């Protein structure tokens, strides 16, 4: 009723019950949150802080870089490209025809060990220019079918390798269809080197992704053979080469684990590899390589991380030095109000 009367001049102001006024008040409740006064930490990039941070980075990075480089140098890696070498000179003009024609394509390669190799020695095959990450390729698989027997008909995503002769293919899809099928046998001084092909795939894949009761069916039965065939009596969970192959590589140059040699190799040992050269990479100029490699804590032979860490660490050290010099030569007092634009008489920056 007298809401438009200022309390200070109203004689009736005293008669208003103050508790009523308080109850009706819309005054926002005070809290540090609503008043945006929460306790806050306000870090500022001071020279000391920045220089210390860069020094810290260099102190951490340079040792890591050195360790990585050492680890990489400890790895012994032997790479043998055999895709052209394993084709008889007479057939080299038409490699595709050679690889597609039937017949024995056994080929022997001798590899000289240059440095002592400790077991286990990992045997990889390396394919170049093979786009396992091509959209048409990665999509062409049926994870449901791989996992359980009941989903054998779940092949809709597998085109164009979904069915053969009207029957679903297990495992279907381009990936399985193009299974790598070169084989390697190793011997040293005429003595067979044992190759462990167990456990080359991920345990999680064997146990949960590839079914123990899913067996290959109708596989590589079509008119066009893409690669290796499978043993129909083994469940998919035990077809480790397939499991490895089905983990499609991220990049067009990739290695896949073929097996492990559980023997040390000495310097100047000559390892004889008997390989069946069956897999067709010739149609797209893909290279095939055989790789024997030991492993370090950092994996295979790759200097990149070591160099990267040394570079970044070195750069940070250099920056820390530059900052220090600049800071000493031309310091600025932090928070000096005389730098404020309205306290400066002329434009400074």
């Amino acid at each position: 009723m007298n809401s438009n009367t200022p309390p200070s001049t109203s004689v009736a102001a005293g008669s208003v019950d103050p508790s009523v006024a308080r109850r009706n008040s819309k005054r926002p409740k005070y809290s540090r949150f609503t008043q945006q006064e929460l306790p806050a930490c306000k870090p500022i990039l001071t020279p000391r802080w920045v220089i210390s941070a860069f020094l810290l980075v260099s102190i951490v990075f340079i040792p890591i870089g050195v360790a990585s480089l050492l680890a990489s140098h400890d790895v012994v890696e032997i790479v043998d490209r055999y895709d052209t070498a394993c084709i008889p000179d007479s057939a080299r003009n038409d490699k595709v025809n050679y690889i597609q024609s039937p017949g024995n394509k056994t080929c022997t390669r001798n590899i000289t060990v240059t440095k002592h190799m400790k077991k286990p020695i990992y045997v990889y095959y390396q394919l170049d220019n093979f786009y396992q990450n091509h959209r048409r390729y990665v999509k062409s698989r049926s994870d449901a079918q791989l996992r359980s027997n009941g989903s054998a008909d779940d092949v809709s995503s597998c085109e164009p390798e979904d069915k053969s002769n009207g029957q679903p293919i297990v495992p279907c899809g381009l990936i399985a269809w193009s299974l790598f099928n070169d084989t390697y046998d190793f011997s040293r001084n005429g003595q067979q080197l044992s190759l462990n092909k167990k456990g080359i795939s991920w345990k999680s894949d064997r146990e949960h992704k590839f079914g123990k009761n899913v067996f290959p069916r109708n596989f590589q039965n079509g008119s066009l053979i893409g690669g290796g065939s499978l043993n129909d009596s083994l469940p998919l969970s035990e077809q480790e080469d397939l499991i490895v192959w089905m983990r499609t590589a991220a990049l067009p140059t990739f290695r896949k684990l073929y097996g492990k040699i559980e023997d040390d190799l000495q310097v100047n040992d000559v390892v004889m590899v008997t390989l069946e050269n069956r897999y067709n990479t010739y149609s797209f100029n893909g290279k095939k390589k055989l790789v024997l490699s030991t492993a370090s804590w950092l994996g295979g032979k790759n200097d990149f991380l070591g160099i990267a860490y040394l570079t970044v660490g070195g750069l940070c050290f250099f920056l820390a030095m530059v900052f220090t010099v600049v800071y000493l030569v031309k310091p600025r007092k932090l928070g000096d109000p005389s730098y404020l634009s309205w306290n400066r008489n002329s434009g400074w920056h």
Partner: protein
Amino acid sequence: MDSNASIESESYRSFSSRRSISSHHSKLSASNSIGEATCAEMGSKKVRHGSRGGADSEGFNLSQKEISDEDARFVYINDPARTNERFEYARNSIRTAKYSVITFLPRNLFEQFHRVAYIYFLVIAILNQLPQLAVFGRGASIMPLAFVLLVTAVKDAYEDYRRHRSDRIENNRLALVLVDGEFRDKKWKDIEVGEIIRVRANETLPCDMVLLSTSDPTGVAYIQTINLDGESNLKTRYAKQETLSKILENMSSGLIKCEKPNRNIYGFHANMEVDGKRLSLGASNIILRGCELKNTAWAVGVAVYAGQETKVMLNSSGAPSKRSKLEKRMNVEIILLSFFLITLCSIVSVLAAIWLRRHRDKLDNIPYYRRKDYSETDVENYNYYGWGWEIFFTFLMSVIVFQIMIPISLYISMELVRVGQAFFMIRDGGMYDEASNSRFQCRALNINEDLGQIKYVFSDKTGTLTENKMEFRSASIWGVDYSGGNPDLQSEQVAHEVEVDGKILRPKMAVRADPELLRLARGGRESEQGKHVYDFFLALASCNTIVPFVVDTEDPSVKLVDYQGESPDEQALVYAAAAYGFMLIERTSGHIVVDVQGEKQRFNVLGLHEFESDRKRMSVILGFPDKSVKVFVKGADTTMFSVIDRTSNNNVLQATEGHLLSYSSMGLRTLVVGMRELSNSEFDKWYIAFEAASTALMGRAALLRKVASSIESNLCVIGASAIEDKLQLGVPEAIESLRMADIKVWVLTGDKQETAISIGYSSRLLTSRMNQIIINSNSKELCRKSLEDAIIKAKKLSGPNVSSNMEGSSGAVTIPVGLIIDGTSLVYILDSELEELLFQLASHCSVVLCCRVAPLQKAGIVALVKKRTSDMTLAIGDGANDVSMIQCADVGIGISGQEGRQAVMASDFAMGQFRFLVPLLLVHGHWNYQRMGYMILYNFYRNAVFVLILFWYVLYTCFTLTTAINEWSSVLYSVIYTSVPTIVVGILDKDLSKRTLSKHPQLYGAGHRQEVYNSKHFWLTMVDTIWQSAAAFFIPLLAYRKSTVDGPSIGDLWTLAAVILVNLHLAMDIVSWTWVTHAAIWGSIVATVICVIVIDAIPILPGYWAIFHAAGTWVFWLCLLAIIVAALVPRLVVKFFHQYYCPSDIQIAREAEKYGRLRDHGTVEIEMNPILEPPRR
């Protein structure tokens, strides 16, 4: 444009009609008059009231331009069936709810898809459903859109449910409706146009109705319109004399022809035909839905507008939607990003085309392409439609993959951030107004950040800078100045009390009195001066339209007299008269009762000419107990001196003029009071003319005006009153802060020049070191000349650097220039080529004061500036006359003060006091701008980093848009992984504390200089983005070169790297870390890790268990560390160098805040909430 103009003219009309309503003379119902029995019954002549003529005249003028039949609605009184026969008028049920159960889904979706962002989402999702283009799975592509739609729909549904509920309550209220000759209860929703409704005291009106009759014999009803326009004082409405007596009998003969429903709550035009007589109806004859009937036992009216067509419902539309400057600016960059997106997609499709071309012979058999499908007997192409189509599909697919390059989620984030910012602005205790018990209101939600870039403030004066609470300060009576009331001592306030019937009557407000004048007033009429004092205060007490109400207090023996009226000036004068012992205690149509020094006197009101804006004076003709008749006139000095008899008492006249000058130079509002004794013949002559004029059918208003000027002549000046319109608390400090923040303040006022200038000084708008330029011209040519001269002068004074160097203006030694211009000159300037000159001149001035401006000119001035500059304008005002200006400016602020809610309804933000402008602009505006500007840039960066990582990978996949990053991760990236921190930072981050910002208004310049968001920052950010994405992509690529790594593993690495990278990037830029910020940043990273783990735990996805294998190797962690350090180092270096060697003001202030070095460098301490400070006089 058209609708805009009509709104402006409408508000102007409503403004002028308000003023005329304010002077309606009223009759008091018997129940409200007190002590009538004690008054000697005097033979009073039956008088017609000029005021009634005023009400009629409005209707009459309009009835001359006949409402055409097509534009009219016909209401047959008490015959709803016939009324609704031809046209079905809206029933009285209202519906604020938008949806019903059936229409909810389609309508809500339709409304949601009004946003471009959602349509973009939808198109992308639809594209993705085509089998040729299916990049993402169905679920993944639709999920984000569905999620957003669902959240919004649930919110809308809840709000609508609440509206349904309140509608139901409203519609089922009961009202008394005349059915078959008696009033019966009827639900509101069933009321029809044409029905007769009876409303009792304190009831709410169910619909808009024309008054037919009230409990008052003269047909007056009092209504409170607080629900409609927020004004709490009572308004008087009248029933027509002709309908008063025929409440029940014979009502159906009437026909009302009124205009179509419209939103103007201050206007109504109609004719009523009763018994063959034609009457015109105006705004004073209609009572509107939502109002309450007060002090009137009952009122009967006929419904003319019902339900949705009532004026209150037509007015309940939302605030106009505006786009913020930052958002407009942002759209330019969005277009740039679109080009960038198209470029990326073109690169991909061109490269894909080249690849297809080079491998065209081998495509059939390449194991990873396999164009031919051999499974059928006839070998066909599989999923290959020819080379042109493949390129086209590649292009569309890349658009789908790179879609988040256009940060659609940004629009949603911005809305959330603005809601959050509004929350904090509303909750700010520093912007709560104790006096009106009102919080800050955010009515528009899309222009929060504009508050940080305001360059021009246009302010109304009365009620905005001042309180619009008038206080009587000084009187000049018969040439003697009485200004002795010591303003600093509260104790001197006098509340004169009188005893009537054993009860003490006391005016509700005390007034500071001059002791000398008090003595004279109490001394009676014996002395010569005492006689003049008597006349003076009698004039103040009688010459007005104030209605006294007696209010009970807790003490039964004391009653308060509350003066209700629409003009605060008149209220102040009546309270002053009461304080000096001339207490108005009763007003009816025929007489007034004034308690003069404890002795009750009754005067017959023989006639009254209401206040009119072109006459600028009002007069009352009083019959004294001794049979003498006097006319009292009060009005503005300009119009009063023209009607004053200058032949006699010349020295009094001159003294009064001198006092007036000194009053107005003190910033007081002055009124001159004059009187004349009328001889019998004179009175009779006037009476006949008055009678004739007020019953005239044509041109009644003009006739009445003529009659008024005939009687208001040859007056003898008694004196002048001075009323102070007190400055609001903290206004001078606020204006000083705004000026220091390099905001140009323009004050637009209807006051006269001297008053305006003196208010200018007291509000520190003008200072003594400021050079004033005054433009006061009466023709266009003179205007041109004075403008040109002024520009030369201003240029000389303000120095050459104002126009050339905006930044330097703060530091340069220049003399500030204040421009004062009056409304007459503006008439010649606005809408002519002189506008340009005025703008040039104004841009050299730090302050502009426009006096005597009309409401529409206010909008014209705002438009003048807005047209010529890209700087942001803000208009602040409190009255209906400011509406046009508020709507015209980029940001409109309404003061929820004394003058109703029109301004608030039209505004984007509303608050209680002018001084809240300082925390609003300098603190919240600054924060909002900084936060929003940073957030937009960050969102561009955040999405671009991710898109570029995807893009780099595409180059290694035969350009086939494979993503190593899981499709769910790419969908969740902007929804879950990175959205919360940016919103939290957008709402909560504070670059500087409230204290620093309000202490150093210059820091506001950051917004003027667009320091946070500009093209330079955009391009720098984009370069940084390219580097960061390259670091994030190529470090793993090279580290995993020639390894057994599979796609999902390296994809998980890229996902985590991107998320950690963008979150740390944000963390680097956060200024103040509260627990909320910590939770948001680190929580997001943890949430991402959890999501990645969950996705990789689904066995039927190809990437099953990949994260566990990857995270089990050292390479993974070393890559992650290297990515983060290498990506962020350049940014850190640049940031550090910039902060250390080219520090911005904000940076320095931040350091100073931290190290406590911020001294007051020539700045004035501004107390933000000076509750304890005594009010400035």
